[in-house]
Structure formats: structure tokens, C-alpha cells
């Protein structure tokens, strides 16, 4: 059994709300409440959930953009927070991020060559000539003509910009790419182009992915392992096939029922429970899903269920039966 490339253990992050006079804290956003997950080399872990579930916070914590309040991030077995300077730098280089908004994530004042070369500059990789070559190489890989490297982001379409962002992430030869909803801002016909590109890159370079999305269909297409998040907790974590074949947590089942199916006919009433995701500032007691859960029992209101079950883990007092 190979060791995981990245593991997260017990990540906590609560954002204080600064309200009122004198900056007194007026509550906290409970973004992450002790989550554990692992990503293996060359494999994709998808973090799935709706707004407020904490998946973006988790992605940022892995990328080092946010420091967790508690918990550990281990890259190749070494704690990123306490690692030596060199170890930390090589960990940062090995983990690159692609963001959701292709318009906002590229600096409009830099041309494409400069944008893609930036990680090489930051990590001191290669000299001028070597960098130019590398930039041309990754641009070609993502389907952008390297001769267009002198152009500026505003001259490209949304799909092309996202490719440039991917090229930028590939330039320093990372081992893990953290992709935060990379398809959501793209047109439908472009989404599959970019998705295919990501799959090809993964196969060619053996990259691992941490893929954040709300779209279960994309998860089924791209992920190897899936973790479903709700209000800062992981409620189910399983290999892809097992999750779709036998979802155990009622929220996973809700997500599956809510996912629109082309050609599936009109929506039938009652498939999705009423109510909305509660505010992460004031989460419910016990299991966060219990106010909306069709299978809630009295224990659900009182104690938070623990994520357990080995390979196919779920956190539920009254899980869905295995079909």
C-alpha cells in the first residue's frame, strides 16, 4: 500500500466575525470542523458539497493560503507547518492551484508568457532560456499556441484563460494540482474540453488532483475517491464507484437526487428535502444535517456522528441501507 502524497488530519478553521465597536468578536464562521482526508499519487480526490460546506476553505488550507487553527497537513509524510525551509518550499512547489474564475485569476497586466513563467521565477527554476522553453512546452500541452504567448489575458476566451491557468500550474512540474471548481465559469461545450485536458494531463504526468466541485456528474467522470462535505464536516468518504453504487449518508443521496439528468424527464416532487443549508455561524447541534434529514432519529440531534467505516466511511447514526 503506497503512502499518501498528501494527508490532512483534523483540520479546523473558524473565521472570527468582527462586528460591533472596538472589533469585538461577534461569532465565528465554523468553516472546517475537524476533517481528515488523503490523496494518493496520481489519483484524484474530489471534495463535493454546496455553498458553506467548507470545500474551498479546505482547498486553500492545502494550498497554504489559509493557516488552519488546528490539525496537520502532511506532504509526503512531513508536516508542512513544522517542516524546514527547504522542505516547505519544495512542498509548495509540488502543490499548484487552479481557481474557479478564469477572468480574475490571471493578472491583466502581464502577458501569457510572464503569467506562466511566474511560478518558475518564484521557485528559482531554470534560467531565462530554460524558462522560455518550459513555458512554450506547457502552453502547447494545454492547447495554446506558444506564439500567442506575447498576448494579454483579455484577448482570450474564458476556456482559453482557464487553459493558461492550468499551464501556469503545470510549469513547475507539480505533483498535486488543487482545482477549485475549475469548470463552473465555463460554457457547457468548453467544460468537456477542459475536463478532457485535465484527464489527459493526469494520465501523461501521473499527477494527483484535489478537485473541488458541486457537480456530481463531473465527480463520476473524473474522481477516484470522493469526500462529501456538509457544514465543515466530511459526511461520507469512499471510492467513486462505491459512493455512486451505494451511498450511505442521506445527504449524499440528496445530492444524487437533486442532480439534474438530461433526458430524465420532469422532476418529481419530494425527491429533495425542504430547507436550506444552515448558517455556518450558527450550526445545529449534533449532526449538522439532522434538521433536513428524512432519516433523522433522536440521537442525531444530540451527538455528532463519527466518520467511520474504513474505505467507505460515513458519519451517520441512521445510514441508508446498502441496496
Amino acid at each position, binding site marked *: 500500500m503506497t503512502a499518501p502524497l498528501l494527508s490532512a488530519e483534523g483540520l479546523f478553521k473558524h473565521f472570527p*466575525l*468582527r*462586528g*460591533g*465597536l*472596538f472589533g*469585538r468578536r*461577534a*461569532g465565528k*464562521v465554523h468553516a472546517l470542523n475537524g476533517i481528515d482526508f488523503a490523496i494518493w499519487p496520481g489519483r484524484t480526490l474530489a471534495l463535493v458539497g454546496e455553498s*458553506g460546506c467548507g470545500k474551498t476553505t479546505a482547498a486553500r488550507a492545502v494550498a497554504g493560503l489559509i493557516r488552519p487553527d488546528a490539525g496537520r497537513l502532511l506532504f509526503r509524510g512531513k508536516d508542512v507547518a513544522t517542516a524546514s525551509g527547504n522542505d516547505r518550499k519544495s512542498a509548495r512547489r509540488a502543490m499548484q492551484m487552479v481557481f474557479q474564475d478564469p477572468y480574475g485569476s490571471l493578472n491583466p497586466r502581464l502577458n501569457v508568457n510572464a503569467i506562466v513563467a511566474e511560478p518558475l521565477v518564484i521557485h528559482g527554476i531554470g534560467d531565462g532560456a530554460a524558462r522560455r522553453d518550459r513555458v512554450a512546452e506547457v502552453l502547447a500541452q494545454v492547447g495554446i499556441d506558444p506564439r500567442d504567448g506575447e498576448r494579454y489575458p483579455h484577448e482570450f476566451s474564458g476556456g482559453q484563460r482557464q487553459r493558461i491557468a492550468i499551464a501556469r500550474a503545470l510549469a513547475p512540474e507539480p505533483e498535486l494540482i488543487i482545482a477549485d471548481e475549475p469548470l463552473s465559469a465555463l460554457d457547457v461545450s468548453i467544460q468537456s474540453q477542459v475536463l478532457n485536458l485535465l484527464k489527459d494531463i493526469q494520465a501523461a504526468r501521473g499527477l494527483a488532483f484535489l478537485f473541488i466541485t458541486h457537480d456530481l456528474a463531473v465527480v463520476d467522470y473524473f474522481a477516484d475517491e470522493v469526500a462529501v462535505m456538509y457544514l465543515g464536516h466530511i459526511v461520507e468518504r469512499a471510492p467513486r464507484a462505491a459512493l455512486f453504487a451505494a451511498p450511505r449518508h442521506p445527504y449524499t443521496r440528496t445530492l444524487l437526487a437533486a442532480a439534474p439528468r438530461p433526458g430524465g424527464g420532469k422532476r418529481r416532487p419530494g425527491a429533495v428535502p425542504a430547507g436550506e443549508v444552515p*448558517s*455556518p*455561524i450558527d450550526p445545529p447541534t449534533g449532526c449538522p444535517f439532522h434538521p433536513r434529514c428524512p432519516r433523522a432519529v433522536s440521537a442525531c440531534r444530540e451527538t455528532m456522528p463519527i466518520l467511520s467505516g474504513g474505505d467507505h466511511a460515513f458519519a451517520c447514526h441512521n445510514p441508508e441501507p446498502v441496496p
Partner: protein
Amino acid sequence: MIRYILQRLGESAAVIALMSFVIYALIGLMPGDPIDLMINSDPRLTPADAARLRAVYGLDRPLVDRYLSWAAAAIGGDFGNSRLHVRPVLDVMPGFLLNTVKLMGLSFILSVAIAIPAGVIAARRQNSRLDHVINLLCFAGISVPVFWLALMLIILFSVMMPILPASGIASVGGGGGIMDAARHLVLPVATLTIFSVGSYTRFVRAAMIEVLRQDYIRTARAKGAGPSRIVWVHALRNAMIPVVTVIALSFGTLFSGALITETMFAYPGMGKLIYDSIMGNDYNMALVTLLFATAVTLAANLLADLAYAWLDPRISYAAGEGARP
């Protein structure tokens, strides 16, 4: 909310205290002092007399000491005597203050009353001829130097067509009364109004154009709201938010514009008082009047913030309010 206001008032008091020292030091650093003026007007004063006089007035003590004495007296309510007017400062100021309030108050109200409709009309008919004319007038008003404008108005209405008085607040030998005072206000108010109405109109126009582009205006139209209702109910309330802020912040500019206007028209207001007291080295008067100007600016800012919170429900200064995720 109350705590917010109290906090702001506390901060303002601190600013005024700090400014009092800064102003005192600046005036003190100006070359010359009252004794030099006395020497200039009376050549028989000997250096020994000068030294003795300086000791009497305490002008030979270090700046910080003099400031602290002033501050101690000021806290007790004694702001000293005006050297030029030979009376306590607090006796002299109210009269001038009242005149300025009349001048600034009238022109402010007039400016806003003109700017809002003009800005709204210009925004509704963006790029039409009417819009271009309004814009031209605004730029003219903004670009014209105040003193030149004052002179032109004087030439036009007091010299060529002698229908309005050129200076002062009351006619010499006149019986006083409302009509006379009003006639003396016309030209100064007109000057100050023309000075500020241009920029206010431009603010209103820009804010309205921005608001009219918003999605919620389209929703209101989709509901079946007519053009008048869209502009005066849906749009204006939103447009006023930035406008109120900007207008309140420009209050300070209005104050200094009043200064030039008052000088041009020999209008006995705060502006003239400040100018004369600085040039005449009247420490006490200069200090108090400048501090007053500071206090007015701070008050305007506070009112602007409160108005902003009142107009925009997304802003709240109450303790414990944070944005919902």
C-alpha cells in the same frame, strides 16, 4: 449605534485637541509676532521696550509652554481675548458665525435643490442635448475661479446694472430690516452656489447613471413600474447613498470657498475672520476659528456616516452585526 456615535465623538475630540497643538505651532512658526507689528506702527519703541512687552505677553516663553497655558485656559472655557477686536474671542465670534451660517446654509440648500433634479434629468437623458448643456454648465461652474466669478457678478449687478449691493451685510445709513439683508446676500450666495452646484450635479448624475444600469432597475421595469416611479422611488434612494457621502465630505471645501467669497464681498463671516486674524497675528482668534472649522468638518463626516447607515440597510454600526454568509 449609540456606542458608535460616542466612539466617534471621542475620536473627534481627540482630533480637535491634536489639531489645536498643530495650529498653535504653525501660527507660532510664522515669522513675526504681535510685538513686531507694534514696533512697525510705533517707531519710538526701543528694543528694551520690545523685550519688556514680550515678557508681559509671555511671548518669550517656549512654544510648548505657551500652548499648555492656552490649553489649560481653554478647557476652563476661557479662550482669551482677540487682539484685533480687543474683546474676548467668544464675544466676537458668534456674530461672524451667524453671517457665515446664513451664507453657507442658503447656498448649500440652493445647490442641493438644483443639483438633484438637474442630475436626475441629465442621467435619464444621457447623451442628449439637454444632458450636454447641463454638463457644460457644470464644468463652467467648477472651472471658474471663485474670486473672478465674484468680481464678474459685482461688475454686472452692482456697477453696470446697479441693482444689488456689492459688499457688506447692511446698507450704510439704511434702516436695516429683512429686505435689505436679503439684497446683500444675493450676490455672495449666488457666487457660492455657482461654485458648488456644478460638482454636486455631476455627482448626482454619475450616481444615477450607475444605479439605472443595475439589475434591480430592470426587475422593477419587469414588474410594470413606470419611468417616474423607477427614477424617483427605486433609483434615487440608491443614488443618494454615494451622493450624501460625497456632499458631506465636500463641506470642508464649501467652507473655504466661503472664505474667498466673503473676502471678495467684504462679507463679515468666519472666512474673513480667519483670514484677518492670521494676517494680523491674532493668535487667540485664529486658533479658535480654525479649530471651529476643524470641528465643522468632523461633524460633517460623522453626519455623512450616519446618513449613509440610515440610507443603506446593508450598513450597520450596531455591535454584533456581521454580514451573513
